[in-house]
């Protein structure tokens, strides 16, 4: 089992005959109180691995582009004896550099044994269909989010992920507003359900959507696709991508979810300037620290946000 700490092309991991396990998926329901904490996500997965609460054989840390706290946490895990690889996204979106990174990853995992590119691409296509149902109000944000966020590791098993997708049933979702949730996924496990309670249907989860958006039939195509992972490159690409997605998803309002001690927090001003000041989307920032049910302060903000939307923004 290969532990991953942010988006690492799972296609390559499965093609090397290994299974991926996104360590972040253990965090929102964790009760662990980590020592030496900046970001709760990285500190908790580090402790879970070091204390043996989550069993992995090797670790792949996204060390460049995306999450920088993870780099040091990965070093701690490596120095404690776990084989660790540092995966870096090219800031300039160079797909040749991306392919070299994929080759290095494959080498760390013992080389490509049986290509799983087609099967993973097919599963992601099915996940994108769930995403469309969610956009059409036929799947709740909570269920849609679970499928999309699980696109990072495909639930540790391609069969398991396929079953999870097949189990999703069409339903009718009542809502007043279509909302985009930007930034890292919420560390509060009930966040989507709470938003639904106050009439806000999340039709676009930025990062989970990235998890199911990238794929390819071979290493070259995978490299070309992941080189466009907007979270890892210059923010100008991300802003343009968001603009098109907000329009495509017919979004009424934007919530930027950010994490205490995460460098992405610094992007809030840029996102607000572009999406609110320039494009006019109602915009709300929520900042979290440790995992818990959505706290009262955040609930108050979100309810007030819904009230403001009702009063015609």
């Amino acid at each position: 089992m290969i532990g991953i700490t942010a988006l690492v092309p799972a296609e390559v991991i499965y093609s090397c005959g290994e299974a991926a396990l996104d360590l972040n998926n253990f965090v929102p329901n964790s009760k662990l109180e980590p020592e030496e904490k900046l970001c709760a996500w990285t500190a908790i997965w580090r402790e879970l691995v070091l204390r043996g609460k989550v069993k992995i054989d090797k670790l792949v840390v996204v060390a460049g582009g995306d999450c920088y706290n993870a780099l040091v946490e990965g070093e701690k895990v490596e120095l404690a004896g776990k084989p660790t690889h540092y995966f870096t996204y090219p800031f300039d979106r160079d797909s040749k550099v991306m392919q070299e990174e994929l080759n290095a990853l494959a080498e760390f995992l013992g080389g490509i044994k049986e290509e799983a590119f087609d099967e993973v691409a097919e599963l992601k296509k099915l996940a994108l269909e769930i995403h469309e149902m969610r956009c059409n109000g036929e799947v709740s944000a909570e269920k849609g989010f679970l499928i999309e966020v699980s696109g990072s590791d495909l639930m540790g098993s391609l069969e398991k992920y396929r079953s999870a997708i097949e189990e999703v049933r069409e339903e009718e979702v009542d809502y007043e507003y279509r909302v985009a949730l930007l930034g890292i996924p919420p560390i509060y496990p009930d966040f989507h359900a709470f938003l639904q309670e106050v009439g806000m249907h999340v039709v676009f989860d930025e990062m989970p959507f990235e998890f199911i958006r990238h794929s390819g039939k071979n290493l070259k195509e995978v490299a070309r696709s992941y080189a466009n992972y907007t979270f890892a490159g210059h923010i100008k690409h991300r802003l343009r991508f968001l603009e098109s997605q907000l329009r495509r998803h017919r979004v009424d309002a934007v919530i930027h979810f950010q994490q205490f001690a995460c460098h992405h927090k610094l992007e809030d001003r840029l996102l607000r300037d572009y999406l609110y000041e320039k494009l006019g989307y109602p915009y709300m920032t929520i900042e979290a620290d440790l995992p818990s049910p959505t706290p009262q302060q955040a609930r108050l903000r979100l309810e007030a946000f819904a009230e403001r939307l009702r009063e015609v923004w």
Partner: protein
Amino acid sequence: MLIGLDVGSRAAKAAYYSGDGYEFRIVSSQNWEDLLRDKEGVVVSTGYFRKRVPHDFNVTEITTAIYGVRRFIKRKVDVIIDIGGQDTKVIDIARNDFRMNDKCSAGTGTFLEYIASYFALDVAELAKLHRLAKCAAPINSTCSVFAQSEIVSRLVEGYTKEEVIKGVHHAFAKRIAQMVPKRARSVAVIGGTAKNRGVVEALGKELGVRVFVPEEPQVVNAVGAVEYYLAREGER
């Protein structure tokens, strides 16, 4: 009777509306039940505990602040600053937007209580001492821990207690001013801290705008809850 009930983190406030005007009452949050004793009517609740207290309708204090300020201040107000016990909200009325600081005590009533307790004062005495200061001691931090270290340094350097308190008020106002949109021309300050004239004066200086304080700044949200109900009555 209509009862606007605002139960916040530190104080509970009620506004009783009988048709010809309001009566108010304020107790500590833990004693909110006293506000409903022997009272009958439609209860519109707000504040952090709005869903934990008996109510017919509930609405957030962002919305009630807008409705309450409209009742109290007849002049044009661009921005409302609601300084609560546990958080501070800056509501941009013109753009229907708001910002909140609820992650640390900087810029909230709790910070001033902490400062008052350091000087063994009641928080209500801070404004009095502010007035007596000849200058404001330079204080930069509004983090309780760092501010205390700065306070000790300023006192050691020879600044008086009054000058340090005035400096604290300016640091407090600077922290809040960072949340206020630059284009704001007039600001209303509400919440219990608005009774502190030192803070209001410092805010006026830091923002360089007109600052209005309603007659009863602590009950604006309770009144706003009733006003919101009255405005929406036709829709029910």
